[in-house]
Structure formats: C-alpha cells, structure tokens
C-alpha cells in the first residue's frame, strides 16, 4: 500500500551528508548568501543574466559535489505549474502592460510581443534556477543547522524586541513534529481504510473528491495534535522552560573568513548579473 507510506517520503530538505566546501560553510552565512542569490534571481529580467545565474547554480552543484539529478527531480513536480504560468503569460501579458518590443501576433485580444516571449522564457528560467539553488542549500545543510543559522541571523532583531528565541523554538518544534504527524497521518489513513474509506482512488483531476477524502483525517489529526501539545507544554515546563525568560544557547556560530568571502562572492556576482548592461 505505497500510497499510505507518507512518512518515508516526507523529510524536509533531504540532507545528503558529503564533505564539500559548500557543506562546510557556516550555516548562517550560507543561508544569507543563498537568500541574496534567490532574491537576485527573482529580480533578474535579462536573458544573459539568467544564463549566468543558471550556470552559477550548476556550478554550485559541482562545488557541493551533489548529484545533479537530485536538483532536477525537484523541478519535475513544478512543471505543470510552470506550463500553466507560461501559457497565461504568453497569451495575456502583452496587452496588459504598455506594449513594447516587436509585435509578433496581434489578433483580437491576443497580443504577443518580444517582451511577452522574453517574460515567458525568463520566468521559466528563474523558476528552474531558484529550485536548483534552494536544493543545493537544503541538500547540503541539515535542517537543524538551517534553523540555528536562521536563529543567528535573526539575533539582531532582539534589539527591536522581536522574540528571536521563542520564534526559533516554534520553528524547531514544528520541524521536529513533521515526521511524527506524517506517521500519525499514515496510521489514521490505514485505520480509516480498514473501515472501508477509499483513499487515493480519485483521479488527479477530481480535486473536490480528493479533498473530501481528507476530511475524516483532519479532525482526528487535529485532536491528537492538541493532546500532544498539552503533553509537550507539561514536559517543557518540567524542564524549567519559562516563556520569555533568558536562556543560554548550546549552538554557537563560528563564521570564519572563508564564510565571509563566500558571502562577498555571492553578493558581487548577484550585483553583476543583475545590473550589468548586457546587450539585448
């Protein structure tokens, strides 16, 4: 009954432990660097810039010694979405914004210009680049490291009274319970199926039916989540947790010059690819 085996499929990030320069980077610098890169990609409009980012994403895979097929497998589920988006953009973008560039087709409401074609191609490329870059990040960093990296990055926010520690604790607990709830969901599905409920028999286009299938799972899942939360609060209190009280931190960051140069390279490269006036 493979359609019930959720817990085997759900893991956040699929960390692959190999030794590489990228793996060894300090997690907060890595997180910041990759965020900069992703934001830069999201804003990049030129063909040339996107080719550069795409090459850079592939280069990151080489540097991190991760098999490229892991990155590609992340693209597959996004393809239908990308196709729909591309069609919509191709058909309806040209008329919406001040039409510029060469007009290719103009028939009633249809207006396809060189700009709308560029938008379609560039968005598809951006999509692929972002998926590749973020998979390098999650494949090369254990989720715990990511969280600790984030906590360190957010630390300055405590000066504006943002509850950094509580926030990261919430994230940590959420991540910690993902496999637990996946397992619970699996158990519930099996329990309901053994009483005759039909899961996974609806075809993929029967969205309403597939959503309805989920109802008999949601309520028991919520109920058990509440019960778990009660227990968890008790266990946390027993271990002297008092919300808002100051705590020490076990994990301390140790960013070295190598990490900072990585960050500088990323920022420099992103600025170049974004703002250099490429021809075309």
């Amino acid at each position: 009954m493979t359609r019930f085996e959720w817990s085997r499929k759900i893991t956040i990030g699929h960390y692959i432990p190999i030794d590489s320069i990228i793996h060894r980077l300090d997690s907060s610098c890595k997180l910041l660097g990759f965020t900069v890169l992703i934001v830069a990609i999201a804003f990049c409009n030129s063909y040339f810039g996107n080719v550069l980012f795409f090459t850079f994403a592939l280069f990151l895979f080489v540097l991190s010694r991760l098999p490229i097929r892991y990155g590609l497998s992340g693209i597959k589920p996004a393809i239908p979405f990308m196709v729909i988006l591309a069609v919509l953009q191709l058909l309806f973008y040209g008329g919406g914004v001040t039409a510029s560039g060469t007009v290719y087709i103009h028939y009633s409401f249809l207006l396809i210009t060189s700009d709308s074609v560029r938008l379609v191609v560039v968005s598809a490329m951006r999509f692929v680049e972002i998926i590749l870059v973020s998979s390098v990040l999650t494949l090369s960093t254990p989720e715990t490291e990511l969280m600790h990296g984030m906590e360190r990055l957010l630390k300055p926010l405590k000066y504006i009274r943002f509850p950094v520690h509580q926030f990261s604790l919430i994230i940590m607990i959420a991540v910690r319970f993902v496999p637990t709830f996946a397992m619970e969901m699996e158990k519930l599905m099996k329990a309901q199926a053994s009483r005759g409920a039909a899961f996974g028999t609806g075809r993929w286009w029967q969205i309403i039916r597939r959503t309805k299938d989920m109802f008999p799972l949601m309520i028991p899942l919520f109920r058990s989540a509440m019960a778990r939360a009660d227990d968890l609060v008790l266990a946390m209190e027993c271990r002297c947790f008092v919300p808002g009280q100051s705590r020490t931190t076990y994990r301390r960051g140790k960013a070295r010059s190598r990490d900072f140069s990585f960050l500088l390279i990323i920022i420099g490269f992103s600025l170049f690819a974004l703002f250099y006036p490429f021809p075309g």
Partner: protein
Amino acid sequence: MRAKSSLASMGVDRMERQPLIRAEDVSFQYKGDLGEKVIPALNQIRLDIYPGEYVAIIGRNGSGKSTLSKHFNGILQPSRGDVWVDGWNTKEKSRLQEIRKKVGMVFQNPDNQIIATTVEDDVAFGLENIQVPPEEMDERIDAALRLAGLSSMRRRAPYHLSEGQKQRLAIAGVIAMRPACLVLDEATSRLDTYGRRELLRVIRRLNEGGMAIVTVTHHMSEAAEADRVIVLDEGSIVLQGPPREVFQKQAFLQERQLDVPAASRIAGMVHERCPSFRPDLIDSDEVAGEVRRLIGEGEK
C-alpha cells in the same frame, strides 16, 4: 539482582536524613465543569521521600497515582495541605524553577516530550533553560547520554530512534539538569519487553548513583525493584512498605484490583502446599534459589 537495602538500615537512614520531598496532608480535586460532582483525586496524603530512595507507586486506574506524582515538582498544587521539596513549598511560584531543577519528571509518551530535531539539542534544551554556560554543556550532555546509553546516537534525529531509545532520551534530557530526584509517570507503559528492560537498567544505575527515583507503574515486577512500594486507592495511601511485605498481602491487593508479581504468586501457592517454601519471594531468581535450596535439602 541488586541487593535490597535492609529494612533496619533504611529505618535508621530515615531518622537521620531530611526528606527530599514531603507531602503534608495533601488533598487535591480537579475542578469539575458544568456543576459536575467533584470527586477528590487525593485525600490527605502524608508521605516523605528521602534522598537516594527508590519508591514505586502502584494503584489501579484513577487511584490518583499520576495526580500525586505531578505534585512532586509543582505541576499541580494541592487544594489543601502542602508539598515541600528540599524545604521549599511548591505553592511559592518564585521557587518553581528551583524545585523543577531538583525534581525531574518523565512522562508516558516519549514522542511528546522531545522538542528538538537532534538528540544533543534536545538534551541541551533543559540546560539552556537553567542557563548553564555553553562551555559546560558538552560535558553535561556527554555524561547524560552515557548514563542513558545513547552516546552513539548524539547527532541522530529523534524520529530515527526506537520507542525505548526515545524514552531514554527523555530521561537524558532530565538528568542532564542533575536533579536529586527523578519521577517517572508510567514511563515504561508504552515500551516493549526489551525497551523496558533497558530503561529499568538505566533507572537502577541512576539510583545507584544516589538519585532518588519515584516510579508510577502498572507493572508489579517493576515495583518489586523498589525499596518501598506505596499502594494508592481512591486517592489515599492504603498500604506501604518494602515490596517483600506489600506483595505478601495478595488478598488485600486483589480487592483493589491489583496484581502481585508472578514470582510472589507462585511462591505463595507453593507455600500453601509445602510450608517450608518461603512465601515472601518477589522475583524469579529468588524462586529458583528457593527451589534449589529445597532440592538440596531433600537430597541430604
């Protein structure tokens, strides 16, 4: 088998030492909703627990044993009476942190007690809360994981552990805070035989190291390991003493829907037929020893 401290020496100890936990006429009732009749969960409990002691609390479902154990570190405050931990009243909110540092607690479901995504981070959680300096943490985490037999799992994710290992992780998270007493609220009830055996081994090791243990359990063979067994029924202590004495009173326990360890039952049955067979045995090793002794006598 572990040598049981004899009654006499325990009596002397008790007089000399200050109790770690003292319950003085503790009564407790859960607040009833919608004008339901309120049934007292605990009724005038008077109890001392001494440093280094191993106490088992038994009783059928709803007898109040879990409620009582939750009084030992101030999760619940008595409706009447007082609980003192090392001289501090659990009603003093400002002392709760100190009290919980002294008395650690482990619950039934290990999955709901683990909060971090790796074993070491989870053990560190309590240490972070009591503001242990980060330089000291590694050493404490090492020691706690070693005691719990999880040293090799340090960097694992909790969901890769077995149920028994998870429960030992929950224990490690508590003992890293170096409490004087560990309270286990049915901590073995979800474990298989192997998991339970490993957990009991850890508990015994902690007790030998001087930590007081209070275990709430349904398993009589576990209770037989303790220095003292406390029997609760309808919120009151109806019987207490060394397991050897308590498990002699089979009829009394059965009235309260409690069992005795299989070894005690067998010893009692054999004793009825053959009076020279000792009736006050509590584990299978002792029964085997007694059988061997009688066979030896027969051969002489």
